[in-house]
């Protein structure tokens, strides 16, 4: 006897002390009704068939990464779970307002910190915190950027606590990735749940590349009809290479590598079969320190020698701006509520998670006494690297973490562990709760901030795990905002 969809849903456990996106103590939440109704009609077989179809779609389109073993590359897809994560329209509107507010303040902060540094002079943020930030980039001090926009593209990570409140987990203001998965996940869902998607009033996301393209064209330093916009990639061995080709194709712009570009007389050119052609806007997917070997790492072959001189002269726009890392530093994060108050005179809409600085002795002692309730993070790391979860780490790992903190306290922060909300995932023939976060993508253009509804939901596929990063065994889901 095949298991029906109804049994699948009915066997889904009701969590205590954890917010589940689908199931509350009173039953299935409003926004999940349509998928529940549709799912009831199906059998486990149908779900598994859809799962298989989704995997094949990712594989044939080359949405894969390569694992190397025995000198041979094996192609793997990023795990995708077919059950969408659903957010109600009202919840989303709140998130959207909060992200816009945050981004506006962070952008003003970057303009301030690379020009007058008024926020430091006014004593809102300690000078040594900025000076000791490894991503505070003195080389770009005083450079004027078009429309005073620094954070053209942002990925803001949100999590949901056990009371249903959305918190900001971290800001990604340098080269946030994953947006192609958001878009491709939706395309795959269109194939596996065609009618359901149509009937559920899901807000559209596929205009993202068009919005981005319009913004990129607008950043061009000169008033010309057809500025040349390029996407600068580190090359096909980069793990996000699929995304680079995807975006270049969707926007109809050239995908270039550092070796395709050169700088002459403070202008950037690309090498074409018909000679050199000037480049006006670079959407770069290369980190700051690899962009220009004359200014940053001299051993980098990924960038373009002289690029920063062209940038300083205003002959080329670089997206995102250089030096943004100072604003998404995990120690600076704690000051964002103060920034919002300082620049906008508003209270923060989406709250931060309480953050303890390890170079403050009192806070450090408190954290050391409560290590099992804390997550320790390195301030300049991302992707889940350098993270210690106090509730699951071994004594040995905790001891090591304490030693590391004491050796360089500025490099670490600690936060109380928040039980991320869960969503149903199809695992081993059952619907099982797994923890998720949410990364909406915001585009900051001359006409304001646009956030496509939803974003990328990352899911920790291991039971009980709170780590959602793809580099640490995470997967993703399509994210619906329904009205």
């Amino acid at each position: 006897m095949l298991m029906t969809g109804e049994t699948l849903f009915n066997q889904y456990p009701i969590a205590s002390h954890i917010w589940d996106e689908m199931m509350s103590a009173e039953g299935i939440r409003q926004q999940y009704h349509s998928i529940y109704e549709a799912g009831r009609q199906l059998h486990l077989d149908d779900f598994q068939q859809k799962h298989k179809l989704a995997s094949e779609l990712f594989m044939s389109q080359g949405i894969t990464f390569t694992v190397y073993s025995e000198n041979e590359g094996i192609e793997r897809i990023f795990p995708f779970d077919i059950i969408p994560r659903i957010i109600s329209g009202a919840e989303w509107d709140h998130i959207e307002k909060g992200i816009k507010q945050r981004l506006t303040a962070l952008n003003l902060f970057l303009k301030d910190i690379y020009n007058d540094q008024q926020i430091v002079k006014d004593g809102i943020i300690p000078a040594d915190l900025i000076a000791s930030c490894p991503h505070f980039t003195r080389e770009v001090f005083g450079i004027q950027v078009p429309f005073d926009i620094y954070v053209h593209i942002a990925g803001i990570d949100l999590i949901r606590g056990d009371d249903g409140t959305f918190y900001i987990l971290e800001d990604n203001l340098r080269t946030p990735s994953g947006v192609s998965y958001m878009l491709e996940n939706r395309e795959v869902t269109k194939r596996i749940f065609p009618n359901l998607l149509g009937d559920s009033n899901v807000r559209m996301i596929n205009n993202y590349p068009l919005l981005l393209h319009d913004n990129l064209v607008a950043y061009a330093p000169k008033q010309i009809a057809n500025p040349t916009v390029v996407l600068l990639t580190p090359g096909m061995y980069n793990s996000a290479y699929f995304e680079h080709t995807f975006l270049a194709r969707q926007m109809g712009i050239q995908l270039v590598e550092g070796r395709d570009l050169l700088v002459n007389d403070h202008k950037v050119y690309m090498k074409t079969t018909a000679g050199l052609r000037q480049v006006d806007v670079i959407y770069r997917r290369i980190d700051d320190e690899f962009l220009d070997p004359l200014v940053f790492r001299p051993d980098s072959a990924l960038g373009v020698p002289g690029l920063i001189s062209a940038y300083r002269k205003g002959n080329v726009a670089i997206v995102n701006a250089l030096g943004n890392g100072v604003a998404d530093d995990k120690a600076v994060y704690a000051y964002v509520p103060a920034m919002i108050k300082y620049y906008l005179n508003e209270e923060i809409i989406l709250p931060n998670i309480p953050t303890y600085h390890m170079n403050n002795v009192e806070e450090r002692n408190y954290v050391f006494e409560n290590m099992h309730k804390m997550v320790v993070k390195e301030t300049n790391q991302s992707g889940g690297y350098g993270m210690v979860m106090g509730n699951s780490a071994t004594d040995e790992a905790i001891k090591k973490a304490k030693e590391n903190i004491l050796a360089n306290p500025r490099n670490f922060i600690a936060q109380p562990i928040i039980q991320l909300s869960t969503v149903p995932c199809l695992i081993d023939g059952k619907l099982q709760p797994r923890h998720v976060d949410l990364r909406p993508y915001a585009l900051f253009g001359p006409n304001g901030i646009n956030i496509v509804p939803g974003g990328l939901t990352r899911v920790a596929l291991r039971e009980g795990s709170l780590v959602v990063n793809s580099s640490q065994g995470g997967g993703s889901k399509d994210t619906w905002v329904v009205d």
Partner: protein
Amino acid sequence: MLSRIADSLYWLHRYMERADGMLRLMKTSYILSFDKVQASSMTWEPSLKIFTSLPNDEIERLKKDNAAALYYLFLESKNHNSFKSIITRARENARGVQDQITKEVWEQVNQMYHQINQPGLKEKLAGPGAIITIDSFIHFSDQFCGISDSTMPRGQGWNYMNLGKYTERCLLTAEFTHSFFKKLDFSLNDEQDIIFWRSLLLALSGYELHLKNYSNLNHNYNVLQQLAFDKNFPRSLYYALDRANKYLTDIAASNPVEGSIQLLRTYGRLYSSVKFADIELVEREGLEKYLIYVRKELNEFSRDLGRIYFSYS
């Protein structure tokens, strides 16, 4: 168009054309290996000589062992010219220009790559499934040509792709022809029956055309006539060079950079040496010398092309 992109498009199609030629030669070799006729000594030898750099004693050993020969040509990663290596490189090139080729073309190359990496392929090739497997890849290759033709926009990219394709095709025909005539010491008068030539003609998809067009028994002449000079045979030297000439002229017209005139002139000399030649001339000059000349000039042309249009690093 970016020089790097042009380079990758050119090589993508060179590799795909090479893979196609290889598949057809492997298929005929494989089928012929079951015929216990005089020609069976020729089964795996041409493929192994053309697509590997093995020493002679290894070739002697492999050519008697169907499964081993097929494995070495098809899947062996130590063989840099194995079918698998070629498809892997084609896919690398396609990946690097994903935004410049259509989604359909990319997916076709990508699918071929996944097919060649599927588990159990080695066993299939060793067993009775070998011919079906080779056929399925030939089918993929045919689809690639069709998909490219029906989805790629005509323009610079298309010109570089086709220049690569026809350059490679001309080289393959010259190589195949060379390796078969070598058995006869490049003699055009040595009498060989059609069975000897059948595998070469089948490998170049020209057997049926040959039967239709040539009724006299001077097979050596006829085969050379078709493979070198037939204007309607899509794998003849002339046809391939003529198509390449068109695409090169288009490229030079839209990219009049330094050196392009010289490149056209160099290519023109090679093209004329096929266009205005005939069998008598070749016989006078020596067939071996002629085939080597064509190959050498083509390789030099490819190098010059790279220097003039692809130099980006």
